[in-house]
């Protein structure tokens, strides 16, 4: 099922439009549910641009950001999102404590549960860890990135950025290039973009390309120049050196030669191509500064802005049942 044949979110009443308790991934979401979250996000964009950014949706609720893996941007984005909705936001930097893995992860989940958190945002270095915790707690859980598995809010903010810039996600030719193998961003984006009827191409050297990509409804490329032909959107990914053991590429220099996004290479895409990057960027490796900072093509800072709006929307939607919002109880 794709966006071309999904029912509009407006046809659903109350919680029927988004019946999920948690947001652990894009996998399992229907196209109309993704569209609903994008629609919900829209309202927060203007609000965030206005002077009065404060709202009351999560007033009195406790939001715990449990980050078992280091993060700056995502943590900040979730923290700002929660605070703008007046949640009591607590950040738990588990990555810096002795809490690493093992039974402790379950213990931590039970501890958070006992503290009566109202919503928990989790980042963890292991695929599936967020789902493991979600099974143990009573409140909604938001996945802020688990291993190589999923990063759903990143995919939503990327889809929102594309939709606002291009008018629609459907029909867009999106090229995702870089370290696909280790990227949760790539997985969530593939699921979201294909669900919304975009044409998705993935590009990486074979050493960084997971098996069976075609079965996810995307076209794999190893030649970046070929992949870029006629692209509407180019999404670059960071080389995740911290997830790599052993040599997946000969050198950053060679990677840049084959897969670095330069202005010259970008000319193969459509003239109004949109360039995206989830950050943090390795300038001069997967992307040149001339592209990253391009005033017309680059949507990289806009992605960051959309991130706050998307996270506000997700926090709002997932807590509606607990807040007994009309139609959501």
């Amino acid at each position, binding site marked *: 099922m794709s966006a071309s044949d999904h029912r509009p979110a407006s046809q659903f009443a109350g919680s029927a439009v988004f019946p999920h308790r948690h947001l652990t991934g894009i*996998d399992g979401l229907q196209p109309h549910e993704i569209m609903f979250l994008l629609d919900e996000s829209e309202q927060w964009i203007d609000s965030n641009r206005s002077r009065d950014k404060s709202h009351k949706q999560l007033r009195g609720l406790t939001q715990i950001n449990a980050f078992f893996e280091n993060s700056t941007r995502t943590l900040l984005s979730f923290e700002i999102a929660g605070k703008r909705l007046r949640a009591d936001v607590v950040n738990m930097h588990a990555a810096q404590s002795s809490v690493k*893995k*093992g*039974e402790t*992860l*379950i213990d931590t989940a039970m501890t958070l549960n006992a503290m009566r958190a109202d919503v928990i945002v989790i980042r*963890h270095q*292991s*695929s*599936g*860890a967020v*789902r*493991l915790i979600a099974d143990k707690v009573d409140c909604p859980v938001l996945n802020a990135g*688990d*291993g*190589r*598995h*999923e990063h759903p809010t990143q995919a939503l903010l990327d889809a929102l950025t594309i939709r606002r810039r291009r008018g629609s996600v459907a029909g867009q030719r999106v090229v995702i290039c870089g370290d696909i193998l280790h990227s*949760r961003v790539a*997985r969530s984006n593939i699921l979201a973009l294909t669900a919304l009827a975009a044409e998705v191409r993935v590009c990486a050297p074979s050493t960084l390309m*997971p*098996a*069976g*990509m075609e*079965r*996810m409804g995307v076209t794999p490329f190893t030649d970046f120049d070929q992949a870029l032909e006629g692209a509407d959107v180019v999404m670059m990914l960071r080389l995740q050196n911290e997830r790599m*053991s*052993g040599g997946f590429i000969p050198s950053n220099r060679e990677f840049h030669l084959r897969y670095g996004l330069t202005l010259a290479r970008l000319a193969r895409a459509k003239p109004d191509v949109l360039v995206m990057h989830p950050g943090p960027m390795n300038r001069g490796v997967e992307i040149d500064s001339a592209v990253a900072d391009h005033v017309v093509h680059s949507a990289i800072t806009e992605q960051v802005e959309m991130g706050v709006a998307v996270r506000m929307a997700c926090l709002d939607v997932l807590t509606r049942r607990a807040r007994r919002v009309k139609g959501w109880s």
Partner: protein
Amino acid sequence: MSRTFALTNANLVCPVAGASKGAVLVRGETIAASGDIRIPKDADVIDCKGATLAPAIVDLGVFTIDIPACHAGGIVRVGLMPDQTPVLDEPGVVQRAALIGRPGLWIHPIAAATRGLAGQDLAEMAINRDAGARAVGTGERWIADSGVMRKVLAYAGDLGLTVIAHPEDGGVVGEAVATSGETATRMGLPSAPAIAEALAIARDLMLAEETGAKLHLRQVTTAAGFDLVRAAKRRGIAVTCGITPAHLLLSDIAMSDFRTFTHLSPPLRDESDRRACLQALADGTIDVLCSGHDPRGPEEKRLPFADSAPGMAGAETLLALALGMVRDEVITVERLMALLSANPAAILGLETGTLAAGMPADLMVFDADAPWLIDADHMVAIAGNTPFDGLPVQGKVRRLFKGGAELL
């Protein structure tokens, strides 16, 4: 105390003599006669009421000594993997392991082929053999250095010991916990291509052929791997291979919910390889069906998938799952008993595994049709980490004998 008794009114299933109706006479610790026999007056009679009577199971390659689970599954002898603490590479620990389960469970240690299973220096195979080891093995790991593996095979061959190898190229596998493919990609799990198995098998077969040693591949799980084994058997190489029910009945799709009970080593394969496993079982390529019994508690399983320990509790479900393959007509019940008892016994050099007169009275009586539900929370094993949790099965062990002594 020596006892004479007869198990009568049974469906006898012997890997050698085949299936028939009849009885088994036990004198002391051994089988005195079986088949259509005359029951002596001094014998106690146990009426099996039409149940199946077969040799008790010899489970080749368990990781934990778990007597209740073994007895529930009809297992009276196990080949114990060398991956213990400490590693089975010294005569003292080998001897202790060999005696620890008696009299109810006979443990036949598989001694480490290299010191500490490190894959570098040959372990004292002859001394460990004299201490009770029935084979040598590479444990859960493969030996990366082909020169060392060649020496292991050559030296073990001199001693008449079978080398039990883990066939996965460790360089290709790396930190993988899944087989590369759609499932691993969607789940974002570290994965390795299935060809890691065939690579290791190809090397070990060439070395076995060159040295003339006996090689048992503990688990073969891929179509490419079975093709190599078939070809090797045709060439007369002394190779055997085994498998667990998990790789016959489950594909990698079973991992889709990050359920760590499906984290196995080797990992679950895709559907085409699973079908190849069934084909290899049907055509006789597979010699041994084993449980791979490796019970793991919540400390090792209630973790994110990649952080969890591989392994499953398989002893008490082995027979029931295997009988399903008889019911599905993949194999006959006689062949099943060869896979479960006679063949593993032969690999370990044990005189058991059939209903022939003179054999140890290691016997099990089971009701092949008795239905039950595999329930991870209510298993008798040390832990209930079974990937078959919730599966309805048929086949329950009713009585179990080791050397004529009743255990169950």
